[in-house]
C-alpha cells in the first residue's frame, strides 16, 4: 500500500494540509485521498486464457470479494499473467479491455424467441425454449433422416440440419458438441476454421 513507499508528497501534502488547517481553520481533505487506493489490492485472482485470437495469452481475472458464500463476485479488472511464457504479462488492446467484454450491458441474459414473421424478440423461459427446440430438431430429423442409402447401405445420416460454431468453445464443449452431432447423424458441421 502507498504507506510503504517513500515519496516526498507524503510530507509535502501533510505539511501543506496542516498548514492550511492552521492558517484557515478548515481541513483541505486528508492528503491520503490524493493517492488512489490500488483497486486490485484485495481482489480474488483467477487464471484464464484470452478468448480472442490464437496466441493464447494468459490473463488474471480480478474479481470482487474472496469467494465467500455471501459474496456476489464481479469482474473488476483483467490484466496479463506474467507466468505465461506466451505473453509474460503483456496483452494487446483487445485483451486488456476484456473486462468490458465480460461486464457489458449488451450481454444476453435471457433466452429470446422470434416467431415466424415476427418483427421483435420475445423473452421465453429456458424450459420452454428447450422443449420447443428439441421438438423442432426431432421433427426435422424424423423427416430427413436417412438410415439406408439408395443402394441399401447403412448410412444413418441427417442432411437437413447443420451445426456451425465452436471456435471459442473449449475443447470439452467441442467434444460434447461432436457427440451431440453424431448422435443425430448430422453431416454438416462447419467451423470458423473454414473461413
Amino acid at each position, binding site marked *: 500500500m502507498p504507506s510503504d513507499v517513500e515519496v516526498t508528497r507524503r510530507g509535502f501534502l501533510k505539511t501543506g494540509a496542516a498548514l492550511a488547517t492552521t492558517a484557515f481553520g478548515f481541513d483541505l481533505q486528508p492528503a491520503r485521498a490524493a493517492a488512489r487506493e490500488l483497486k486490485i489490492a484485495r481482489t480474488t485472482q483467477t487464471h484464464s486464457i484470452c478468448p480472442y485470437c*490464437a*496466441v493464447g495469452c494468459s490473463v488474471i481475472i480480478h474479481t470482487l470479494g474472496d469467494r465467500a458464500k455471501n459474496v456476489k463476485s464481479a469482474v473488476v479488472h483483467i490484466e496479463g499473467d506474467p507466468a505465461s511464457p506466451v505473453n509474460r504479462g503483456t496483452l494487446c488492446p483487445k485483451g486488456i*479491455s476484456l473486462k468490458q467484454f465480460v461486464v457489458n450491458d449488451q450481454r444476453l441474459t435471457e433466452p429470446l424467441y422470434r416467431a415466424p414473421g415476427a418483427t421483435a424478440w420475445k423473452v421465453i423461459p429456458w424450459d420452454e425454449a428447450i422443449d420447443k427446440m428439441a421438438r423442432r430438431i426431432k421433427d426435422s430429423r424424423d423427416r430427413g*433422416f436417412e438410415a439406408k*442409402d439408395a443402394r441399401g447401405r447403412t448410412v444413418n445420416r441427417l442432411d437437413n440440419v447443420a451445426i456451425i*460454431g465452436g471456435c471459442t468453445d473449449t475443447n470439452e*464443449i467441442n467434444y460434447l458438441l461432436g457427440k451431440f452431432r453424431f448422435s443425430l447423424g448430422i*453431416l*454438416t458441421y462447419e467451423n470458423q476454421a473454414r473461413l
Partner: protein
Amino acid sequence: MASLAATFGRGAMTNGWTDVANTDVVLVMGGNPAENHPVGFRFVMEAKRHRKARLVCVDPRFNRTAAVSDKYVQIRSGTDIAFLGGLLNYALSHDRFHADYVREHTNAPFIVKEGFSFADGYFSGWDEDRQRYDKSTWEYERGADGYARIDKTLEHPRCVFQLLKKHYARYTPEKVASISGCTAEEFEQVAEVICSTGRAGRSGTILYALGWTQHSHSVQLIHTAAMLQLMLGNIGMPGGGVNAQRGHSNIQGATDLGAWNMLPGYLKVPRANWTSLAEYNRANSPKPLRPNSLNYWGNTPKFLVSLLRAYYGEHATHRNQFGYDYLPKIAEGATHSWGYLFDEMYAGKKEGLISFGMNPVAGGPNSIKMIEALGKLKWLIVAENFETETAAFWKAKELQEKYYGEVTDPENVQTEVFLLPASCFAEKDGTFVNSSRWLQWKYKAVDAPGNAMDDQEIISRLFLKLRELYEKEGGASPEPLLAMDWSYANPVSPSLTEVAREISGKDVRSGRQVPGFGALKDDGSTMCGNWLYSGSFTEAGNQMERQGQSDPTGLGLYADWAWSWPANRRVLYNRASADADGKPWDETRAPVRWKGNRWVGDVPDYKADAPPEANGAFIMLAEGVAKLFAPDFAEGPFPEHYEPAESPVENLLHPNVGDNPAALKFSSDLDPLGNAEQYPYVAITYRLTEHFHFWTKHVSATSELQSTFFVELPQALAEEKGIASGDRVRVTSARGSVEGPALVTKRMRGLQVAGKTIYQVGLPIHWGFLGRVKGPLVNNLTPSVMDPNSGTPEYKGFLVNLEKV
C-alpha cells in the same frame, strides 16, 4: 491446414509462438501479426533485437508489420504463388537451397510415373467435361516391392527434384514482378534475404494467416510456402517452420476435435462405401511408400475403436463393430463445406441450423446470400454472448438495407429463431488450444449474468430432451442417439474435468487413465475421445493445468507449461533438425539430440529409442519424408499461379487458363462474378489491431480506438477520383455495396501489372448492424468462390468499383 497436413503430416503451426525468437529471418506474408497477433509478434521483435533477425514483409498494404520491417514489398493480392514460386526458382538457380536436407527429408528423390506433365496451365489428367483432374499420372513409380522408387542423386529426369526445378524455371524475377506488381530488384532483394537460410546454421520462419488462406488457390499457396521452407531446410528447425497464425482462440481445438468431415483426431467420417469397420480400417490405414516409413496412420484402427468406445460406452462391442454403424456415412464424392451448406440452404434444402457462437451473416462470404439463406430455414438456434447479425438476420431489412439492395421483409421471413444467452470464457473452465498447439486450461472466475447458461448445459439439456422424446415417442432411427454415452456424474451439465478425462482416454478394465496414445488398442479395451490429446489428462492429473517455467534447452520449448499435442511435443518434425546420422544441422539450435540409445531434448517426433537411420523424419506420411510433390490436392501436385476468380488482368503464365480451374463456384442468382471493366479495383478485407472480428464492436474501449468503418485507398487513386480523407465513398462489387469515409494513404500505391496500373482498396471488416458502434457488413461485397481443397472463400483479391458519394 489442409495444405500442411498433406505436406508434413499434421495440419497445424509447425513450431509455435515462443520458438519464433530463435529465427534469423522472418517472412511475414499473407498475415499481419503486428496488428492481428501483437503478442505473438513480440517473438519477432525479440529475434530482431537479440539475434539481429531480418523481418521481410510482403503485403498489398504497408501495414503496421511493414512499419517495423527491414524490407517491405507491395504486391497485388492473389499473386503470392507467383512470388513464392519465384523464390523457389531463385533458391534453385542460385544454389541457395539446403541440398542435404532436401535429399534426406523430402520426396525430392522420388520418381514420378511416366505421363506426368504440365502445359498451358493444366497438369496432365484434366477432364474438361467434369471440370476436375484424373490424378492417375500424379503418382510415384513403384518398384516390384511395392515401394516408391527413388534416386538420391536427384538426377533422374522424372524425380521430384528435377520436375520441380523445371516447373518453377518459368518464375523468373521479371515474371514475378510483372505478375505481382513489384519490381524485379525488390523481388531479388527479398530473395537474397530469404534464401540466406538455405544452409545449415541458419533458420528462417514464415508467419502467415488469413491473407493466405482466403484465396481460391489458398491450399496450393501454403503448399508453395511449405516447399520453400523444405528446400531451405527450415522445417523441424527451431526458428523455422511454416507458422499458421490462427485467428480464433480455439479453432485449432475445434478442428482437432472433429469439425467438417472429421471425427476427433482427424479420423475421417466414414464414407458410404466403407460399409464395415474392417473396410474403414483398410481404407484409412495407408501402406508405407518406403521401407523406412514409420507411417503412423497405420495405427488408425486403435484410434477409431478407442473413440467408438468413448462415444458408445457399453453399446460398443465386438459384436456390433464397436458401434461403427451408428456413425453417419457420407455419400461418395459429397462435400459438406460452408459454400455448399449455404447454397443448399438458399435453395431451401435445409430445415434447421444450430450455431454455437458463429456469425455467418457478418463473417461468411456474400452476406446478402447468407441473410436470404437463413430466411429459407424452418428454424435457427443461436447460442451467443451478444445479439449477432446472424440471430437477428430478419432485422436486416430495417437495419442494413441502405448498404445494398433488397432483402426480404421480416413479415415474410418464416424462420423461427431461438437466441440463447451463453456464458462467456470467464464464466466457465476448460481448455483452449492456441496456435502453438498448447492446450491451456482456464478456470471459472464469475457466474454468467442473468439466466445465461453454460454451453455444456445447453447441449446436454437438448441432448437429454431429444433422448427422452425418442424413448417416449420413437421416431426415425433412435439407435445412434440412444447408444451415445452420456453417463456423466451430472448429465445435465457435465463437469469439463470429467469430459477432459474422457478425451484423454482410459483403460476400460482398470479404469486408469492412459499415459498416451501409444497405449491405445483396437480391441475395445481402451477408450479415448481424441487420440491426439491422449496423455493430456493422465493418472498424474490434468497436464493442461501445468504452469512450470523450466526451459533447459533455452529454446523456448517450456515443456512443463500446459500440454502440447501430440505427446507434449513442442516443435513438430524435430527429427528433421538433424542429418541422416542424427547430427544437428545447427549445434546451437538442436531441439532433439541422439544420445546413442535415445533422443533427448524435446519429445522426439520419432520413435524415442530408434536410431537416426531407422525411419524417415515425417512419421505421419506414408512416404516417411515431407512432400514437395503432393498429389493430394485438387488442382495439381505442384502449385501454379492462378489469378483470383475476379481478376483485373489475364494470367501472364498461361492466358488461356486464368483462375484456378478447380476452384469451387456457385451459380445461384446471388452469386454473380464481376469483371474488370465494371469493377476495376482489387479489394482486400482485413482485421485491424483495434478490434476482434465482430465481437469488440460491443466493447467501449475498442470502439473508442476505431469507431468507424473506413475505406483505405491509395493517394494516387484518391487524387484521380477527387477524394480526400474523410470523404464518403461507396464501394460496389457484383454482389453488393458498402459506404464509409475514405482513409487516403501513401502507404498504398498503384502497381504496374501487365502494363497497366492496378489500384487496390482496403476494407476492414469489424462492423455490422448491431453493437455499440455500427457500420456496413463488408462481406456484402465478397464472393462465394472457394478453394477446392479447403472450402475457404476468396475474401482477398476480388473486384470492386469505387465512387465518391
